[in-house]
Protein backbone atom coordinates (compact mmCIF):
# COMPACT_ATOMS: atom_id res chain seq x y z
CA UNK A 1 0.00 0.00 0.00
CA UNK A 2 1.34 3.38 -0.95
CA UNK A 3 1.86 6.25 1.41
CA UNK A 4 -0.87 8.18 -0.41
CA UNK A 5 -3.46 5.45 0.26
CA UNK A 6 -2.45 5.28 3.90
CA UNK A 7 -2.83 9.04 4.19
CA UNK A 8 -6.27 8.85 2.57
CA UNK A 9 -7.43 6.08 4.92
CA UNK A 10 -6.28 8.12 7.90
CA UNK A 11 -8.09 11.14 6.50
CA UNK A 12 -11.28 9.11 6.05
CA UNK A 13 -11.09 7.88 9.65
CA UNK A 14 -10.65 11.43 10.94
CA UNK A 15 -13.58 12.66 8.82
CA UNK A 16 -15.73 9.72 9.92
CA UNK A 17 -15.09 10.67 13.54
CA UNK A 18 -15.92 14.31 12.80
CA UNK A 19 -19.14 13.11 11.16
CA UNK A 20 -19.85 11.01 14.27
CA UNK A 21 -19.29 14.10 16.40
CA UNK A 22 -21.76 16.16 14.32
CA UNK A 23 -24.17 13.23 14.53
CA UNK A 24 -24.13 13.31 18.33
CA UNK A 25 -24.15 17.10 18.36
CA UNK A 26 -27.19 17.17 16.08
CA UNK A 27 -29.16 14.51 17.91
CA UNK A 28 -28.79 15.61 21.54
CA UNK A 29 -32.06 17.40 20.90
CA UNK A 30 -33.96 14.21 20.06
CA UNK A 31 -33.66 12.99 23.62
CA UNK A 32 -33.05 16.15 25.63
CA UNK A 33 -34.99 19.04 24.04
CA UNK A 34 -38.23 18.24 25.87
CA UNK A 35 -36.83 17.59 29.39
CA UNK A 36 -34.80 20.81 29.07
CA UNK A 37 -37.90 22.70 27.94
CA UNK A 38 -39.97 21.59 30.93
CA UNK A 39 -37.13 22.06 33.41
CA UNK A 40 -37.07 18.33 34.22
CA UNK A 41 -33.30 18.50 33.83
CA UNK A 42 -31.02 21.49 33.74
CA UNK A 43 -29.41 21.84 30.29
CA UNK A 44 -25.88 20.93 31.40
CA UNK A 45 -27.10 17.90 33.32
CA UNK A 46 -29.28 16.77 30.42
CA UNK A 47 -26.47 16.81 27.85
CA UNK A 48 -24.11 15.07 30.29
CA UNK A 49 -26.64 12.28 30.87
CA UNK A 50 -27.24 11.96 27.12
CA UNK A 51 -23.49 11.84 26.46
CA UNK A 52 -22.88 9.07 28.98
CA UNK A 53 -25.81 7.02 27.65
CA UNK A 54 -24.64 7.46 24.06
CA UNK A 55 -21.18 6.27 25.12
CA UNK A 56 -22.67 3.23 26.88
CA UNK A 57 -25.05 2.58 23.98
CA UNK A 58 -22.18 2.58 21.48
CA UNK A 59 -20.47 -0.25 23.36
CA UNK A 60 -23.69 -2.24 23.76
CA UNK A 61 -24.34 -2.68 20.07
CA UNK A 62 -21.44 -3.05 17.65
CA UNK A 63 -22.82 -5.13 14.80
CA UNK A 64 -21.87 -3.20 11.69
CA UNK A 65 -23.70 -3.24 8.39
CA UNK A 66 -22.52 -5.38 5.49
CA UNK A 67 -22.39 -2.42 3.13
CA UNK A 68 -21.63 1.24 3.73
CA UNK A 69 -24.68 2.50 1.87
CA UNK A 70 -27.13 -0.14 3.10
CA UNK A 71 -27.78 -1.33 -0.44
CA UNK A 72 -28.43 2.18 -1.74
CA UNK A 73 -25.46 1.92 -4.09
CA UNK A 74 -24.78 -1.26 -6.09
CA UNK A 75 -21.67 -2.35 -4.22
CA UNK A 76 -19.33 -5.25 -4.76
CA UNK A 77 -19.15 -7.50 -7.83
CA UNK A 78 -20.71 -5.93 -10.91
CA UNK A 79 -21.27 -2.67 -9.07
CA UNK A 80 -19.24 0.21 -7.71
CA UNK A 81 -16.21 -0.42 -5.59
CA UNK A 82 -16.78 2.05 -2.75
CA UNK A 83 -13.19 2.81 -1.98
CA UNK A 84 -11.77 5.38 0.42
CA UNK A 85 -12.10 8.15 -2.22
CA UNK A 86 -15.90 7.88 -2.47
CA UNK A 87 -16.28 7.53 1.29
CA UNK A 88 -14.09 10.61 1.71
CA UNK A 89 -16.22 12.69 -0.66
CA UNK A 90 -19.45 11.34 0.87
CA UNK A 91 -18.32 12.30 4.36
CA UNK A 92 -17.44 15.83 3.21
CA UNK A 93 -21.01 16.14 1.88
CA UNK A 94 -22.59 14.74 5.05
CA UNK A 95 -20.55 16.90 7.45
CA UNK A 96 -21.16 20.06 5.41
CA UNK A 97 -24.93 19.49 5.48
CA UNK A 98 -24.98 18.65 9.20
CA UNK A 99 -23.14 21.87 10.00
CA UNK A 100 -25.48 23.86 7.76
CA UNK A 101 -28.67 22.51 9.33
CA UNK A 102 -27.20 23.06 12.79
CA UNK A 103 -26.60 26.71 11.91
CA UNK A 104 -30.28 27.07 11.00
CA UNK A 105 -31.31 25.15 14.12
CA UNK A 106 -32.96 22.40 12.10
CA UNK A 107 -33.14 18.82 13.35
CA UNK A 108 -32.19 16.64 10.37
CA UNK A 109 -31.25 13.03 9.86
CA UNK A 110 -27.52 12.33 9.90
CA UNK A 111 -28.08 9.01 8.12
CA UNK A 112 -29.80 10.80 5.27
CA UNK A 113 -26.89 13.23 5.08
CA UNK A 114 -24.42 10.34 4.92
CA UNK A 115 -26.47 8.48 2.30
CA UNK A 116 -26.79 11.69 0.30
CA UNK A 117 -23.06 12.38 0.35
CA UNK A 118 -22.26 8.81 -0.72
CA UNK A 119 -24.90 8.85 -3.47
CA UNK A 120 -23.53 12.11 -4.91
CA UNK A 121 -19.97 10.84 -4.80
CA UNK A 122 -20.95 7.50 -6.33
CA UNK A 123 -22.87 9.15 -9.19
CA UNK A 124 -19.81 11.22 -10.10
CA UNK A 125 -17.51 8.25 -9.58
CA UNK A 126 -19.61 5.66 -11.45
CA UNK A 127 -22.64 7.25 -13.10
CA UNK A 128 -26.36 7.30 -12.33
CA UNK A 129 -26.60 3.54 -12.81
CA UNK A 130 -24.70 3.05 -9.56
CA UNK A 131 -27.77 3.91 -7.49
CA UNK A 132 -30.52 1.42 -6.65
CA UNK A 133 -33.54 3.70 -6.88
CA UNK A 134 -35.90 1.08 -5.46
CA UNK A 135 -33.87 0.96 -2.26
CA UNK A 136 -33.67 4.75 -2.23
CA UNK A 137 -37.45 4.96 -2.30
CA UNK A 138 -38.16 2.04 0.03
CA UNK A 139 -35.45 2.58 2.63
CA UNK A 140 -35.01 6.33 2.65
CA UNK A 141 -37.84 8.35 1.13
CA UNK A 142 -40.98 6.48 2.24
CA UNK A 143 -39.72 5.86 5.81
CA UNK A 144 -38.96 9.58 6.06
CA UNK A 145 -42.64 10.28 5.41
CA UNK A 146 -43.94 7.48 7.63
CA UNK A 147 -41.67 8.15 10.65
CA UNK A 148 -42.94 11.58 11.73
CA UNK A 149 -46.56 10.69 10.97
CA UNK A 150 -46.32 7.46 12.98
CA UNK A 151 -44.64 9.19 15.90
CA UNK A 152 -47.15 12.05 15.81
CA UNK A 153 -50.11 9.65 16.03
CA UNK A 154 -48.47 7.67 18.85
CA UNK A 155 -47.61 10.83 20.79
CA UNK A 156 -51.04 12.35 20.22
CA UNK A 157 -52.73 9.29 21.74
CA UNK A 158 -50.22 9.03 24.59
CA UNK A 159 -50.63 12.72 25.44
CA UNK A 160 -54.42 12.43 25.45
CA UNK A 161 -54.14 9.44 27.81
CA UNK A 162 -51.71 11.23 30.14
CA UNK A 163 -53.99 14.25 30.48
CA UNK A 164 -57.32 12.45 30.72
CA UNK A 165 -56.06 10.13 33.46
CA UNK A 166 -54.57 12.92 35.57
CA UNK A 167 -57.40 15.44 35.06
CA UNK A 168 -59.15 16.17 38.36
CA UNK A 169 -62.69 17.48 38.38
CA UNK A 170 -62.58 18.77 41.99
CA UNK A 171 -60.01 21.51 41.52
CA UNK A 172 -57.45 19.89 43.83
CA UNK A 173 -53.81 19.59 42.71
CA UNK A 174 -53.40 17.04 39.94
CA UNK A 175 -49.71 16.33 40.53
CA UNK A 176 -48.68 16.70 36.88
CA UNK A 177 -45.38 18.21 37.92
CA UNK A 178 -44.37 14.67 38.92
CA UNK A 179 -44.18 13.82 35.21
CA UNK A 180 -40.87 15.67 35.27
CA UNK A 181 -39.43 12.76 37.27
CA UNK A 182 -40.66 10.37 34.60
CA UNK A 183 -39.10 12.55 31.92
CA UNK A 184 -35.63 11.94 33.33
CA UNK A 185 -36.07 8.24 32.62
CA UNK A 186 -37.98 8.43 29.35
CA UNK A 187 -35.49 10.84 27.77
CA UNK A 188 -32.60 8.68 29.02
CA UNK A 189 -34.11 5.72 27.22
CA UNK A 190 -34.20 7.73 23.99
CA UNK A 191 -30.52 8.70 24.46
CA UNK A 192 -29.50 5.07 25.06
CA UNK A 193 -31.43 3.93 22.01
CA UNK A 194 -29.68 6.61 19.98
CA UNK A 195 -26.26 5.42 21.12
CA UNK A 196 -26.97 1.81 20.15
CA UNK A 197 -28.17 2.92 16.70
CA UNK A 198 -26.01 5.77 15.54
CA UNK A 199 -22.46 5.09 16.71
CA UNK A 200 -22.67 1.83 14.77
CA UNK A 201 -23.01 3.73 11.51
CA UNK A 202 -19.59 5.34 11.87
CA UNK A 203 -18.06 2.08 13.09
CA UNK A 204 -19.38 0.57 9.86
CA UNK A 205 -17.89 3.33 7.70
CA UNK A 206 -14.43 3.00 9.30
CA UNK A 207 -14.46 -0.80 9.37
CA UNK A 208 -15.57 -1.13 5.74
CA UNK A 209 -12.95 1.43 4.67
CA UNK A 210 -10.26 -0.57 6.45
CA UNK A 211 -11.52 -3.71 4.70
CA UNK A 212 -11.57 -1.98 1.31
CA UNK A 213 -7.98 -0.82 1.87
CA UNK A 214 -6.94 -4.38 2.70
CA UNK A 215 -6.05 -3.51 6.29
CA UNK A 216 -8.67 -5.78 7.83
CA UNK A 217 -10.05 -9.16 6.67
CA UNK A 218 -13.53 -8.97 5.15
CA UNK A 219 -16.44 -9.92 7.40
CA UNK A 220 -14.65 -9.25 10.69
CA UNK A 221 -15.99 -7.20 13.58
CA UNK A 222 -14.80 -3.64 14.25
CA UNK A 223 -11.49 -3.25 16.10
CA UNK A 224 -11.83 -2.21 19.71
CA UNK A 225 -10.10 1.12 19.00
CA UNK A 226 -12.71 1.83 16.31
CA UNK A 227 -15.53 1.12 18.76
CA UNK A 228 -13.90 3.25 21.46
CA UNK A 229 -13.15 6.14 19.10
CA UNK A 230 -16.69 6.17 17.68
CA UNK A 231 -18.26 5.95 21.13
CA UNK A 232 -16.07 8.82 22.34
CA UNK A 233 -16.77 10.99 19.27
CA UNK A 234 -20.55 10.64 19.51
CA UNK A 235 -20.48 11.20 23.27
CA UNK A 236 -18.34 14.35 22.99
CA UNK A 237 -20.63 15.60 20.21
CA UNK A 238 -23.67 14.92 22.37
CA UNK A 239 -22.15 16.68 25.37
CA UNK A 240 -21.25 19.73 23.28
CA UNK A 241 -24.97 19.94 22.63
CA UNK A 242 -26.48 21.35 19.46
CA UNK A 243 -28.21 24.07 21.48
CA UNK A 244 -29.76 25.68 18.42
CA UNK A 245 -31.55 22.45 17.55
CA UNK A 246 -32.52 21.84 21.18
CA UNK A 247 -34.13 25.26 21.17
CA UNK A 248 -36.10 24.54 17.97
CA UNK A 249 -37.35 21.17 19.12
CA UNK A 250 -37.95 22.12 22.76
CA UNK A 251 -39.52 25.54 22.37
CA UNK A 252 -39.88 26.35 18.66
CA UNK A 253 -42.54 23.83 17.66
CA UNK A 254 -44.79 24.08 20.69
CA UNK A 255 -44.51 24.97 24.37
CA UNK A 256 -43.83 21.60 26.00
CA UNK A 257 -45.31 20.82 29.45
CA UNK A 258 -44.23 17.95 31.73
CA UNK A 259 -47.07 15.45 31.05
CA UNK A 260 -46.85 16.20 27.35
CA UNK A 261 -43.04 15.95 27.34
CA UNK A 262 -43.18 12.59 29.09
CA UNK A 263 -45.74 11.32 26.58
CA UNK A 264 -43.63 12.58 23.66
CA UNK A 265 -40.44 10.93 24.97
CA UNK A 266 -42.14 7.61 25.69
CA UNK A 267 -43.59 7.71 22.17
CA UNK A 268 -40.17 8.42 20.65
CA UNK A 269 -38.55 5.63 22.68
CA UNK A 270 -41.30 3.11 21.82
CA UNK A 271 -41.22 3.92 18.13
CA UNK A 272 -37.41 3.80 17.90
CA UNK A 273 -37.15 0.57 19.87
CA UNK A 274 -39.96 -1.06 17.89
CA UNK A 275 -38.42 0.06 14.60
CA UNK A 276 -34.91 -1.15 15.37
CA UNK A 277 -36.15 -4.41 16.88
CA UNK A 278 -38.83 -5.27 14.31
CA UNK A 279 -36.75 -4.35 11.29
CA UNK A 280 -38.32 -1.28 9.74
CA UNK A 281 -35.68 1.41 10.15
CA UNK A 282 -36.93 4.89 11.07
CA UNK A 283 -34.76 7.92 11.70
CA UNK A 284 -34.58 9.03 15.36
CA UNK A 285 -34.73 12.65 14.28
CA UNK A 286 -37.90 12.21 12.24
CA UNK A 287 -39.53 10.26 15.04
CA UNK A 288 -38.59 12.75 17.77
CA UNK A 289 -39.84 15.74 15.76
CA UNK A 290 -43.10 13.92 14.97
CA UNK A 291 -43.59 13.09 18.66
CA UNK A 292 -43.21 16.71 19.73
CA UNK A 293 -45.79 17.83 17.14
CA UNK A 294 -48.19 14.99 18.04
CA UNK A 295 -47.95 15.78 21.74
CA UNK A 296 -48.58 19.45 20.99
CA UNK A 297 -51.73 18.52 19.09
CA UNK A 298 -52.79 16.24 21.94
CA UNK A 299 -52.62 18.79 24.76
CA UNK A 300 -55.60 21.08 25.26
CA UNK A 301 -54.81 24.71 24.68
CA UNK A 302 -51.39 24.18 23.15
CA UNK A 303 -50.39 25.72 19.85
CA UNK A 304 -48.24 24.04 17.22
CA UNK A 305 -46.20 26.51 15.19
CA UNK A 306 -46.62 25.09 11.72
CA UNK A 307 -44.21 27.60 10.23
CA UNK A 308 -41.39 25.98 12.23
CA UNK A 309 -42.62 22.52 11.27
CA UNK A 310 -42.55 23.53 7.61
CA UNK A 311 -39.00 24.81 7.95
CA UNK A 312 -37.94 21.50 9.48
CA UNK A 313 -39.65 19.44 6.78
CA UNK A 314 -38.07 21.60 4.07
CA UNK A 315 -34.70 20.79 5.65
CA UNK A 316 -35.54 17.08 5.48
CA UNK A 317 -36.48 17.30 1.81
CA UNK A 318 -33.17 18.98 0.99
CA UNK A 319 -30.97 16.76 3.20
CA UNK A 320 -30.31 13.99 0.71
CA UNK A 321 -30.00 16.08 -2.48
CA UNK A 322 -27.95 18.83 -0.82
CA UNK A 323 -25.49 16.40 0.75
CA UNK A 324 -25.39 14.62 -2.61
CA UNK A 325 -24.45 17.81 -4.47
CA UNK A 326 -21.63 18.56 -2.03
CA UNK A 327 -20.51 14.93 -2.16
CA UNK A 328 -20.54 15.07 -5.95
CA UNK A 329 -18.46 18.26 -6.09
CA UNK A 330 -16.02 16.80 -3.57
CA UNK A 331 -15.75 13.66 -5.70
CA UNK A 332 -15.09 15.75 -8.83
CA UNK A 333 -12.13 17.32 -7.06
CA UNK A 334 -10.96 13.90 -5.86
CA UNK A 335 -10.85 12.89 -9.53
CA UNK A 336 -8.18 15.53 -10.12
CA UNK A 337 -5.77 13.62 -7.90
CA UNK A 338 -4.13 14.12 -4.50
CA UNK A 339 -4.21 17.90 -4.90
CA UNK A 340 -8.02 17.67 -5.20
CA UNK A 341 -8.24 15.79 -1.93
CA UNK A 342 -6.16 18.48 -0.25
CA UNK A 343 -8.38 21.22 -1.72
CA UNK A 344 -11.49 19.32 -0.50
CA UNK A 345 -10.09 19.03 2.99
CA UNK A 346 -9.11 22.69 3.16
CA UNK A 347 -12.50 23.82 1.84
CA UNK A 348 -14.37 21.49 4.22
CA UNK A 349 -12.44 22.63 7.29
CA UNK A 350 -12.69 26.25 6.15
CA UNK A 351 -16.45 25.93 5.80
CA UNK A 352 -16.79 24.49 9.31
CA UNK A 353 -14.73 27.30 10.83
CA UNK A 354 -16.64 29.94 8.85
CA UNK A 355 -20.03 28.65 10.03
CA UNK A 356 -18.91 28.47 13.66
CA UNK A 357 -17.54 32.01 13.48
CA UNK A 358 -20.75 33.27 11.88
CA UNK A 359 -22.81 31.57 14.59
CA UNK A 360 -20.88 33.19 17.43
CA UNK A 361 -22.62 36.57 17.71
CA UNK A 362 -26.03 34.94 18.18
CA UNK A 363 -24.72 32.24 20.41
CA UNK A 364 -27.26 29.87 21.94
CA UNK A 365 -25.94 27.78 24.80
CA UNK A 366 -26.85 26.09 28.06
CA UNK A 367 -27.08 29.39 29.94
CA UNK A 368 -29.30 31.22 27.48
CA UNK A 369 -31.64 28.23 27.25
CA UNK A 370 -31.81 27.88 31.00
CA UNK A 371 -32.78 31.53 31.37
CA UNK A 372 -35.46 31.08 28.74
CA UNK A 373 -36.95 28.01 30.45
CA UNK A 374 -36.92 29.72 33.84
CA UNK A 375 -38.60 32.79 32.35
CA UNK A 376 -41.32 30.77 30.63
CA UNK A 377 -41.89 28.66 33.76
CA UNK A 378 -42.34 31.72 35.96
CA UNK A 379 -44.80 33.25 33.53
CA UNK A 380 -46.90 30.13 33.14
CA UNK A 381 -47.37 28.63 36.54
CA UNK A 382 -48.61 30.23 39.70
CA UNK A 383 -45.69 29.75 42.04
CA UNK A 384 -46.63 28.01 45.24
CA UNK A 385 -44.25 27.55 48.10
CA UNK A 386 -43.08 24.18 46.86
CA UNK A 387 -42.75 25.29 43.26
CA UNK A 388 -40.58 28.33 43.66
CA UNK A 389 -37.38 26.38 43.64
CA UNK A 390 -38.13 25.18 40.10
CA UNK A 391 -38.99 28.63 38.85
CA UNK A 392 -35.82 30.16 40.19
CA UNK A 393 -33.55 27.41 38.90
Amino acid at each position, binding site marked *: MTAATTALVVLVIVLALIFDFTNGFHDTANAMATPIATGAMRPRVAVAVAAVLNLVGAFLSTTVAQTISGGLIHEGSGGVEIGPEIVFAGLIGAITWNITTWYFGLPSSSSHALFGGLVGAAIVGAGFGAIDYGVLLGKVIIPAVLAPVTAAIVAFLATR*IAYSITRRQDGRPDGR*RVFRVGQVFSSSLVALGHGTNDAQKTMGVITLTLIAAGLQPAGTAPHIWVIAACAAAIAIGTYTGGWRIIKTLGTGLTAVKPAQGFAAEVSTASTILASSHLGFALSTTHVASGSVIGSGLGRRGSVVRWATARRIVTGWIFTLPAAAVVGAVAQLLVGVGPIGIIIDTVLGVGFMIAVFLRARPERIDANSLEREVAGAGAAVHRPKKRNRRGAAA
Partner: protein
Amino acid sequence: MTINWIAFLTVFLASIIAACVVVALFATGIRLLATPPHGARPAGAARDEEMDDVEGPQRPRRATVAAVVLFVVAALVALYGIYLIIPALHP
Protein backbone atom coordinates in the same frame (compact mmCIF):
# COMPACT_ATOMS: atom_id res chain seq x y z
CA MET B 1 -37.67 -3.08 -3.81
CA THR B 2 -41.13 -2.68 -2.36
CA ILE B 3 -42.06 -1.43 1.07
CA ASN B 4 -42.52 -4.09 3.69
CA TRP B 5 -45.92 -2.82 4.84
CA ILE B 6 -46.45 -5.70 7.25
CA ALA B 7 -43.23 -4.78 9.07
CA PHE B 8 -44.30 -1.15 9.12
CA LEU B 9 -47.74 -1.94 10.53
CA THR B 10 -46.16 -4.16 13.18
CA VAL B 11 -43.86 -1.31 14.21
CA PHE B 12 -46.76 1.14 14.20
CA LEU B 13 -49.01 -1.03 16.40
CA ALA B 14 -46.19 -2.05 18.73
CA SER B 15 -45.24 1.63 19.21
CA ILE B 16 -48.81 2.65 19.97
CA ILE B 17 -49.36 -0.18 22.44
CA ALA B 18 -46.01 0.24 24.22
CA ALA B 19 -46.27 4.03 24.49
CA CYS B 20 -49.89 4.08 25.60
CA VAL B 21 -49.38 1.32 28.19
CA VAL B 22 -46.34 3.00 29.76
CA VAL B 23 -47.96 6.44 29.78
CA ALA B 24 -51.20 5.05 31.20
CA LEU B 25 -49.33 3.22 33.98
CA PHE B 26 -47.29 6.27 34.92
CA ALA B 27 -50.27 8.64 34.68
CA THR B 28 -52.42 6.38 36.83
CA GLY B 29 -49.59 6.31 39.38
CA ILE B 30 -49.56 10.10 39.46
CA ARG B 31 -53.34 10.19 39.70
CA LEU B 32 -53.09 7.94 42.76
CA LEU B 33 -50.35 10.09 44.29
CA ALA B 34 -52.70 13.05 43.87
CA THR B 35 -55.45 11.32 45.88
CA PRO B 36 -56.78 13.87 48.38
CA PRO B 37 -56.84 13.06 52.10
CA HIS B 38 -59.95 11.34 53.53
CA GLY B 39 -62.87 13.69 53.80
CA ALA B 40 -61.27 16.45 51.72
CA ARG B 41 -63.69 18.77 49.99
CA PRO B 42 -63.46 19.86 46.37
CA ALA B 43 -61.27 22.93 46.07
CA GLY B 44 -63.17 24.44 43.20
CA ALA B 45 -64.02 23.82 39.58
CA ALA B 46 -62.09 21.50 37.29
CA ARG B 47 -58.89 23.08 35.94
CA ASP B 48 -55.97 21.98 33.83
CA GLU B 49 -52.72 22.70 35.62
CA GLU B 50 -49.30 21.74 34.37
CA MET B 51 -47.06 22.39 37.33
CA ASP B 52 -49.13 21.10 40.25
CA ASP B 53 -47.32 19.05 42.82
CA VAL B 54 -49.12 16.21 44.57
CA GLU B 55 -50.81 17.01 47.84
CA GLY B 56 -48.32 15.47 50.17
CA PRO B 57 -48.33 12.81 52.82
CA GLN B 58 -51.99 13.00 53.90
CA ARG B 59 -53.13 10.74 51.12
CA PRO B 60 -54.41 7.23 52.00
CA ARG B 61 -51.63 4.68 52.37
CA ARG B 62 -53.22 2.33 49.84
CA ALA B 63 -52.98 4.99 47.14
CA THR B 64 -49.25 5.44 47.73
CA VAL B 65 -48.60 1.69 47.61
CA ALA B 66 -50.63 1.25 44.41
CA ALA B 67 -48.83 4.21 42.78
CA VAL B 68 -45.42 2.74 43.59
CA VAL B 69 -46.50 -0.61 42.14
CA LEU B 70 -47.56 1.10 38.91
CA PHE B 71 -44.28 3.03 38.65
CA VAL B 72 -42.37 -0.24 39.10
CA VAL B 73 -44.42 -1.94 36.36
CA ALA B 74 -43.77 1.00 34.01
CA ALA B 75 -40.05 0.74 34.81
CA LEU B 76 -40.12 -3.00 34.04
CA VAL B 77 -41.62 -2.30 30.62
CA ALA B 78 -38.81 0.21 30.00
CA LEU B 79 -36.23 -2.37 31.11
CA TYR B 80 -37.71 -4.82 28.62
CA GLY B 81 -37.15 -2.14 25.98
CA ILE B 82 -33.50 -1.86 27.00
CA TYR B 83 -33.21 -5.64 26.84
CA LEU B 84 -34.48 -5.52 23.26
CA ILE B 85 -31.86 -3.04 22.04
CA ILE B 86 -28.86 -4.96 23.42
CA PRO B 87 -28.10 -7.67 20.86
CA ALA B 88 -25.75 -9.48 23.24
CA LEU B 89 -28.69 -10.42 25.46
CA HIS B 90 -30.59 -12.31 22.78
CA PRO B 91 -28.21 -13.98 20.31
